[in-house]
């Protein structure tokens, strides 16, 4: 493409990611590169490996082969005497701090208030003093429109509110990259909008995001690229316009016919 676009640094570089569960090969060699500030939407039939692939990017799933690099750093492996050796979980934890993740089921800590959920990363991972972390958490909660819910426990919040707290929690670590694993799939329809609004705003602020989702509206409005994954492979990787108007592959057309 254009010269200025290639000058933007790579945030994600995944090469030939493979993963099997027993006999079933879920990922059959997936390649993906994402540049800073890009929003990539991953679409595809369920069971096609989208979520599994997303989880290899922060090593919640360990790929059987292939390499993931975030901001140029190989995830899960370290260099020892010129050879790539698997890192211990303690070291991988350090690598994960660059990547935030938002889950389908929110996964907020039920025993902490919204404020302490958001502050939990800075306090327990970066040893930021509690008062300071809480002040920053308060700002993040205000940013996602929940300034009045700081003292609420997750059980007292709606699904949409919980997911916005979860986004704020991920942002509190100041990640270079945000991963969204079906962030709106567990929400009632009227709450989907409030979560997508936050995501659109993050995009405007230049956040790099990879989103596994079926939200076509979000794909059209906010995605720079749509990546279609089926049967463990990347079938199509295009701008949303081209993806929806001129899909190249039969597999993509079948999928689009069914969901649109």
């Amino acid at each position: 493409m254009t010269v200025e676009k290639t000058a933007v640094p790579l945030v994600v570089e995944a090469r030939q990611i493979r993963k099997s569960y027993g006999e079933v090969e879920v990922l059959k060699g997936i390649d993906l590169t994402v540049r800073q500030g890009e929003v990539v939407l991953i679409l595809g039939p369920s069971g096609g490996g989208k979520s599994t692939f997303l989880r290899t990017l922060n090593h919640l799933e360990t790929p059987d082969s292939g390499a993931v690099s975030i901001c140029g750093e190989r995830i899960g492996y370290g260099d020892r005497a010129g050879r790539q050796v698997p890192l211990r979980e303690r070291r991988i934890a350090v690598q994960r701090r660059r990547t935030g993740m938002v889950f389908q089921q929110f996964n907020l800590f039920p025993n902490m208030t919204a404020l302490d959920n958001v502050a939990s990363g800075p306090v327990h991972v970066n040893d930021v003093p509690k008062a300071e972390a809480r002040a920053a958490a308060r700002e993040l909660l205000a940013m996602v429109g929940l300034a009045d819910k700081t003292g609420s426990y997750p059980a007292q919040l709606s699904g949409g509110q919980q997911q916005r707290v979860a986004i704020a929690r991920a942002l509190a670590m100041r990640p270079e990259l945000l991963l969204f694993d079906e962030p709106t799939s567990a929400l009632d329809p009227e709450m989907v909008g409030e979560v997508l609004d936050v995501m659109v705003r993050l995009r405007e602020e230049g956040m790099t995001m990879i989103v596994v989702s079926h939200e076509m509206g979000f794909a059209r409005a906010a995605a720079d690229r749509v990546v279609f994954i089926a049967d463990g492979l990347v079938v199509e990787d295009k701008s949303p316009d081209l993806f929806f108007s001129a899909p190249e592959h039969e597999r993509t057309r079948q999928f689009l016919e069914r969901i649109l």
Partner: protein
Amino acid sequence: MWSWDAFFSFLSNPQLIQGAWTTIWLTTVSMALALPLAVLVALGRASRIAPIRIVTGFYVWLMRGTPLLVQLVIIYTGLPQVGLRLGVISAALTGLVLNEAAYLSEIVRAGVLSVARGQSEAARALGMPPWKVFRVVVMPQALRVMVPPLGNSFNGLLKTTTLVSVISVEELLRRTQFAVQTNFRVLEGLTAAALYYLAMTTLWGLVQRWLEVRVGRGHQTGPSRSRRIKRATVPALELEAR
């Protein structure tokens, strides 16, 4: 004939009061030592390293499969035969702690397993190292599930300590038996002792309820939930009354 005088003199007997104190002390110290050991054993049984799994599994199997009374007599009376001599209190504590930890480890294990997988995943995704995932996220939530059965164990242990009277620890039962030997008022003496046990377990029940509220933070706090329950139950009761 039942003698109230004898009963009340047992109740206020400093021997019994001191025995009750020993019982409380033994129970609390045993529990306090057994719980960390139980956490280690539970972690050991979930370990990726096979020898650790086998050793901890064997320990739990052995301790739960043999009577505490036998274990106590072996520790106090049997071990000196191979040159390991423990004092009365040390022997009692050793037996109680080793035995209790085996049972508690099962409670800890169940508690840890009850925490949803997504919780530790969220913590890992934030970049927490493994021990922080356990201490900050998994353990506090496991505790909520563990407190009722742990409280049950504490209650049981208060009464199980009577067994150490066999190796001559002067806890409540043994002190009562001594006191009874002065006037042979068995019924009054042991009723008084039973009352002491009842008082201790009742007091513990209150402590446990307070603990449950503390570790239950964030759960069942929504006002809508209790209101819904009330609305659902009230008409049902009215129907029954008719």
